């Protein structure tokens, strides 16, 4: 990344000098343009935020009532010190965007996190042509290739049914923003009752306010008779797996974890859950290559994940690519490093 280019990498994050704004900064700045509401992209403490309007409620939950937040819909353009800034769907989670930045004919796209696979809870990824494309590489190895989601939802359904026959609760760990709602939207809702951890409940409510179809849920903390959990599905963030006291209330239960990392057996065993479901909100290997190709960029900057591997592969195939050392982490790891917004696993929804 050229030192005097339109976008540079600084110790606070990706910076547009001409427009004097940062994209997903990890240290406080005066003006932050945000791609999506996951903790490693949306930090508190910036003076002003510009976020995609399609995820407004989520940003509000993340940033609190005090934050100064301006919104802008997908496809709309605003000028910041002469720099054109627009949001385009990234297909990652509700209200996730790629940020397109243009100045004097030079176009950059910072894609944040994204996936190409259909997801009924958010707008589909839109390919945006540019000169410089910044891509993630969370799952940038050819072993990561997702199956159609119907199969995964069917697996979750049959796991839930089998547990129900044994009078067990099914406790499914999934990232509280995006993955949880995508699962609830996709599974067979007639099987039984769905309960949610506080972190999930609050964000799910925000999804509903944005008009996303999510089945009815009950906050776990509001349940007095623990027998209600028998045969039910409980959705909780990955961090809740460590909260032994919190889990005890479900009595006999089976645990599951929904993540792209579950592709590899070792990672699933390391998680020590009963079932791993391979479901990710990130692009798999073929999708990464497809998205990169469709950007038709002169230069591809590759951040978090298997960035060095993706860079080498692209270079060997005639594409100019450069690794970029950001502090984004990708996928469920974020929730463990940053904690769920609600702090303790016991916290009730607001």
């Amino acid at each position, binding site marked *: 990344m050229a030192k005097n280019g339109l976008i540079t990498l600084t110790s606070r994050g990706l910076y547009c000098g001409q427009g004097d704004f940062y994209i997903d900064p990890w240290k406080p700045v005066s003006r932050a343009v945000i791609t999506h509401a996951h903790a490693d992209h949306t930090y508190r403490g910036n003076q002003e935020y510009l976020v995609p309007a399609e995820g407004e409620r989520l940003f509000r939950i993340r940033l609190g009532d005090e934050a100064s937040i301006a919104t802008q819909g997908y496809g709309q353009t605003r000028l910041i010190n002469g720099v054109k800034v627009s949001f385009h769907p990234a297909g990652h989670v509700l209200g996730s965007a790629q940020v397109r930045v243009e100045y004097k004919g030079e176009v950059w796209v910072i894609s944040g996190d994204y996936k190409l696979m259909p997801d009924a809870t958010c707008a589909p990824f839109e390919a945006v042509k540019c000169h410089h494309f910044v891509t993630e590489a969370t799952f940038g190895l*050819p072993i990561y290739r997702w199956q159609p989601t119907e199969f995964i939802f069917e697996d979750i359904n049959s796991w839930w049914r089998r547990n129900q026959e044994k009078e067990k609760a099914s406790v499914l760990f999934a990232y509280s923003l995006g993955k949880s709602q995508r699962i609830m939207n996709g599974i067979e809702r007639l099987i039984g009752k769905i309960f949610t951890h506080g972190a999930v409940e609050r964000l799910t409510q925000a999804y509903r306010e944005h008009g996303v179809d999510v089945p009815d849920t009950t906050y776990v903390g509001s349940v007095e008779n623990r027998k209600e959990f028998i045969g039910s599905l409980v959705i909780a963030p990955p961090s809740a797996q460590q909260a032994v006291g919190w889990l005890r209330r479900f009595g006999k239960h089976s645990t599951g974890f929904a993540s792209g990392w579950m*592709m*590899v*057996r*070792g990672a699933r*065993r*390391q998680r020590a859950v009963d079932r791993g479901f391979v479901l990710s909100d990130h692009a798999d290997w073929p999708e990464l290559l497809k998205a990169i190709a469709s950007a038709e960029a002169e230069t591809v900057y590759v951040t978090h994940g298997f960035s060095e*591997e993706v860079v*080498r592969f692209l270079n060997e195939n005639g594409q100019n690519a450069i690794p970029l050392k950001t502090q984004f982490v990708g996928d469920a790891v974020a929730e463990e490093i940053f904690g769920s917004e609600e702090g303790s696993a016991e916290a009730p929804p607001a």
Partner: protein
Amino acid sequence: MKLFTELYVELDQTNKTNEKVEALRFYFERAAPSDAAWAFYFLSGRKPRQIVPSKLLRQWAIELAGIPEWLYEESRDTVGDGSETIALLLPNNATVDETPLHILVEQKLLPLRGAAEEIQREEVTSRWSEMSYSQRLVYNKLISGSFRVGVSQQLVVRALSQISELPPDIVAHRAMGDWEPTPEFFNHLIDPDLDTDETPIARPYPFHLAHQADFPIEGLGRPSDWQVEWKWDGIRSQVIKRSDEVFMWSRGEDLITERFPELAAAAKSLPNGTVLDGEILPWLDDRVLPFTELQKRIGRKNLSAKILAEVPIILQAYDLIEFEGRDIRTVDFRTRREMLQRLVSGFDESVGKVIRITESVEAADWAHLAEIRERSRTLGVEGFMLKRFDSPYRVGRHRGDWWKWKIDPLTIDAVLIYAQKGTGKRANLFTDYTFAVWKGKDLVPFAKAYSGLTDAEIRKVDRYVRDNTVETFGPVRAVKPQLVFEIAFEALQRSTRHKSGVAVRFPRILRWRDDKKIEDADSLDTIFAMLDAFQNPANA
């Protein structure tokens, strides 16, 4: 193959013992005996010699996946397992291979060994294209001789015992030693009506295993109820003499008779119908040699006269479990030991030199025993074994009758300097560490350790490694020296092959010392002082 793959997936997916047993029962109740025999064979950790070299499987997968070789290697490092990497790299099919397990193994797999590469390739790649991802994984593991799944033989035996309504000990005993995975074998294994258990002459007994005493030793009551003996660190072995033949088995049920000809020769003079349990030890000038010396012999196909002279071995026998053709495992230990003593005292001098009986250590109380135990390191032992005089010889690991009373490990504070990704469960995390100690102003590598941290700590260290890599050498990352860990180990030995000049046995991480700075870590001087204190025989 379908049913067996489902079993594999079930076993692989759960950590709960009863669910594993349930899955095993489900399988064995449905599988034909011809398939069940092979399933039992693989599940109990037996494997045919490698059928197709992993190198070839890898090469074909790289070609089919159309990726460069380095990308395969990166993928493999992340997955931690070659068979699984290959299974993941190929497109996932909707088709399922219905070939019965025994047909697949006997007619498709085994004949491939030694076949022309083109024939191997044709068979393997066309199988791959017909199999689901999970089947491919299991198939690759079978073909490369790396099949392993998280069940102990004990668990498989428990499932079969439930199906057959036979006591688990009977099933476990019938499954010992060498056998062929035939339907006859399997039917015999679970036949409840077979009342005479005619033992094939080579078959060993299941080993009785001890737990580490994890409580104040006084909790065991009076010392006089216990046989106290030194805990030797060698190769646990059953030495069998039946029908004029000698068979020696290791704990892993490998036949090791030919590895130790001097012991096999001595055992020839045992009466027929004798089974000894004991420890094979490298022994010279009336003291034990370091375990690494024994490894020199284990690794060798041909034992030269030189190595036999340099590393002679003996058996420290500590139990007699068959005598005059009679299984005496239910006889109390005191009586068994008396019988063993009588047997050993009747040996010729030449035999008695090789087959010895463990020394009994006696003292009035536990405090005195604890004092005597302090001599362990100078004697080259790990502490004491405690065996209740009135106990039977049991099957497998039991709490109560046999205890290991080991000395505390040596410990040292060392600095993390290199990290590498682990395999299996630890794949894609930096879990294999190299630790260093001070030598003047430099940190020199001292030990590698893989285990001892909690999953949460592993993730923290992993993060540290990723954020603080200063240099990369292939898969190894050199990290900024900052984290200090307390490393425990069992023994030290001088070594010219190690930069530090010492080799350590069984190093592991005891705890993360985040209260310490790297300046607080120990130095090589401390380690050499330990070496001198215990007078371990030099081994340059």
